[in-house]
């Protein structure tokens, strides 16, 4: 995999520190050479072309860049790409199979859980982490779990309904 960097300084290319990392993303094993300062969100978007992960605020507030690392939800704009060496990443692209949407995706469709759609991947990944650990959440549990994700359309009502819809589908 090739990651192309912006070059703004005069450092010799051979002096730029690069590290080789190995990781799994959405079930597929990868090796990448990354600059240590590359953020995980940029590895995912620019390096791997998985643009479902969005970068919204870039300041650890909005949660649009949420992915799972070893099953735990993290804000990928606030983790270095080198730190996923040996780890397993799941992005929103890892939810659906070739033939079927994930119940969370179905839920967002059924309950109109998205308006502009920008926050949706992060909402889904935070919800995935919740449902993996708590298959039968209350509305309060869902609101609490999504409190690190912002929806600028303020469509929270339907987002919460979508997650509850998915929880029920997953249980049945």
């Amino acid at each position, binding site marked *: 995999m090739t990651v192309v960097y912006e070059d703004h300084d005069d450092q010799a290319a051979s002096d730029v520190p690069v590290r080789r990392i190995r990781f799994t993303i959405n079930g597929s094993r990868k090796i990448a050479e990354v600059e240590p*300062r590359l953020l995980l969100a*940029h590895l995912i978007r620019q390096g791997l072309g998985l643009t479902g992960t969005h970068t919204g605020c870039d300041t*650890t*507030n909005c949660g649009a860049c949420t992915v799972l690392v070893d099953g*735990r939800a993290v804000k990928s704009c606030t983790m*270095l790409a080198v730190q996923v060496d040996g780890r397993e990443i799941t992005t929103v692209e890892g939810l659906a199979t070739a033939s079927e949407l994930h119940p969370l995706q179905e839920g967002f469709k059924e309950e109109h859980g998205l308006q502009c759609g920008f926050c949706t991947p992060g909402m889904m990944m935070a919800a995935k982490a919740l449902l993996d650990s708590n298959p039968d959440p209350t509305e309060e549990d869902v609101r609490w779990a999504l*409190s690190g*994700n912002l929806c600028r359309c303020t469509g929270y009502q339907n987002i919460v309904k979508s997650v509850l819809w998915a929880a029920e589908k997953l249980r049945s």
Partner: protein
Amino acid sequence: MYPSRFRYEAPRSLDEAIDLLRMGGDEAKVLAGGQSLVPLMKLRFASPELIVDINNLPGLDYHRADPDGTIRVGALCRHADLEHSALLPGTQPTMAAAAPLIADPIVRNRGTLVGSLCHADPQGDWASVVMALGGHIVAQGPGGRRTIPIADFVTGPFQNVLDPDEIAVEAVIPAPKGTPAGGYLKLERRVGDFATVGVAVAVETLGPNVIRAGIALTGVGGSTIAATAAGEALVGKPLTAQTIEQAAGLAAEVARPRTDHRGSAEFKRHIVRTFVVRILSRADTTAERAA
């Protein structure tokens, strides 16, 4: 936003990490949860030349109680570990109350209590909690380990007393001598914002009387404020409407809030008083107080 260029090392042992820090000197920085450091690096407020990532160090992700009740929190124990702790609710109510209020759920998956103390943000929540509990930090350097009381650990906004080649490996909460009670309350505009006001209260009771009390305040001054007089006023007395009101008044007195977009100084001072009353009223488990 990209951080400026740095060298990255991910040592596998504490000794190796300390060696790297020694070589890096003032330009090296420890990376634990990274939930404060990485944003600072992206904004170029911090541009370390060497990052020593301690996330691969074994055996630092614990929080546990010694047989005597001392609680130890390792450098890689995440806020979420404390939030979902089976240990804290029964043993350490102030910490149990604070853990779910740190930042937001996703940040809590990465951020650490020890890292938060080291970062020494004047608006950090854990500093007040650990100060109210009279806790300390254990730091390890080339010369071995030393223990630093939290009040001496933080020297100013974003400054601590660690030498460049020292790592804070553990936060320690001393064993209670009585029955612990207390809590942490935080007023915030929305989840993830800094506290408009945060109040940490930790009391220990023996029979009807308080034998130790610590109160500390977040967000109402240039740094964490220890409301020492408020705590001392409770010692030797039972928790009654009068003693609680007195302590709350003393706590509000030492607050140094400023009027800003989060609220007026007067409002924040009022909240300090209200929170102290609220936590102590709940802490009163003796049920002797007239309703």
